[in-house]
């Protein structure tokens, strides 16, 4: 379980996170929802210790992040984090060199699924294919948790369908996923838990299945209530 407890974060005089708390379970897809600039990316960076927080705690399976934790959790930022000069195969070598949990079989499987070519240079890929490689590098790790920041931004509809397909496949199963998006429609039916964020705090955290069954509301319905009501 990933626990974010009362996290605050300031950028200069502006407080971006004002005591954010939520949890994300293993085996569930948790979606952070909020308008742009609300601090979703900051939360993910904070979980990965890529940016310091001013107060609060973030625990991964009850522990603070250590260097070993990076074998257990991976972050797929909204832009690819490999050198543009690398070929896809070079990126694979890099990952295999540094991560014990790199799963080359899965990488090959995804390469086929996304119809990518191992010999292509990252700098020469289209936007959609770059996003797919980025996703591939994260998904091919044998980790318990995956954080994805806006995996659908700037991607054409067919690539988007391919990516959503991944979510329902064995590639995601049993893992804990935290995802941010502002295009909730594409993945509404996939997510288990929604965390609505506004103004630096969590305004609602709910199980989508329960709300759908008990109140007959979709995630978008709840969002409408919360943000407009």
């Amino acid at each position, binding site marked *: 379980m990933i626990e974010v407890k009362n996290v605050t974060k300031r950028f200069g005089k502006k407080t971006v996170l004002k005591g954010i708390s939520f949890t994300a379970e293993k085996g569930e897809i948790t979606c952070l929802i909020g308008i742009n600039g609300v601090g979703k990316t900051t939360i993910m*960076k904070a979980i*990965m210790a890529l940016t*310091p927080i001013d107060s609060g705690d973030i625990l991964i399976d009850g522990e603070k992040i250590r260097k070993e934790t990076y074998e257990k959790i991976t*972050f797929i930022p909204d*832009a690819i*984090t*490999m050198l543009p000069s690398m070929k896809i195969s070079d990126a694979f070598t890099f990952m295999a*060199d*540094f991560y014990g949990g790199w799963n080359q079989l899965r990488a090959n499987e995804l390469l086929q699924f996304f119809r990518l070519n191992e010999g292509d240079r990252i700098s020469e890929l289209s936007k959609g294919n770059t996003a797919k490689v980025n996703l591939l590098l994260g998904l091919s790790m044998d980790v318990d948790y995956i954080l994805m920041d806006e995996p659908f931004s700037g991607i054409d509809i067919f690539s988007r369908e391919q990516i959503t397909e991944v979510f329902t496949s064995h590639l995601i199963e049993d893992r804990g996923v935290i995802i941010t998006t502002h295009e909730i429609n594409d993945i509404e039916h996939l997510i288990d838990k929604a965390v609505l964020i506004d103004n630096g705090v969590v305004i609602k955290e709910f199980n989508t299945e329960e709300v759908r069954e008990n109140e007959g509301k979709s995630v978008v319905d709840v969002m409408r209530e919360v943000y407009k009501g």
Partner: protein
Amino acid sequence: MNRFLKLVNFEFNRFLKLYLVLIGMTILLQMIGVILESRHYLSQVNQSIYKELMPKQQFLEQFGTFSFSNIAHSFWFMGPIALCIAALVIYVFFIWYRDWFGKNTFIYRLFMLPTSRLNVYMAKATVIFLCILGLVAVQLLLFPLENRIVKWMIPNEFLSVLSLNGITNIDYLTILYPSSFLEFILYYGGGMIAVFMVFTAILFERSFRIKGIIYGILYCAFSLFIFLAPLLVNTFLLKNYFYPLELFFMEIVTGLIVLAGAIWTGHYLLKNKVRV
């Protein structure tokens, strides 16, 4: 340790192209320099002795013999050395900033490796050090080759032959090729301490951005003060009380303190303060 060496290898490969260009440029420009300087001298010889019929003895008195020193002080020779130094100084900064800037922010990846972030820091420093030694070694190999060309081109009676030892004793080259191990430690150790200091200053900037520049400058000033403290105390308070060797060892101690401070501070910033 294993991941550290992989990081060193990885970082080195990222610099390799530029590095080979530097080496190639040094070889090319220095060879051109050797030939041009030699021919220039020879044309002087021809002009004076064969056209103006100056006696050889008088020519040698007036223009002197030709030696490697003529070449070592030419633009063609010093230019590439200065360029290599400048390139490495710039790369001390670029080796960090290239990971933050550009289309793909590779620093995310580096900071999410399942290894201590200090390894990233040390790997970058190691690459800088290896590159310095590499260039110095290439130059050392170039000397005999260049010397050979000089011997081919200049007739014996106009040439003062310098040995390799003689060449490395030409004024500014003694800094690159110190004659004792202690001096080597002093120059290269001092240089590496400066690299670590700059690294940590860069991390101050990367942690606190604009405010970080000020912290970085203050940190460097403080480190320099510590490093130079024995010299300052000896000069201004004790009126040259210590022997040079005593001062030397005190400098080594303060140097190690500054080095440890740089690495510890860098480690702290990487672990707790740095932002991507």
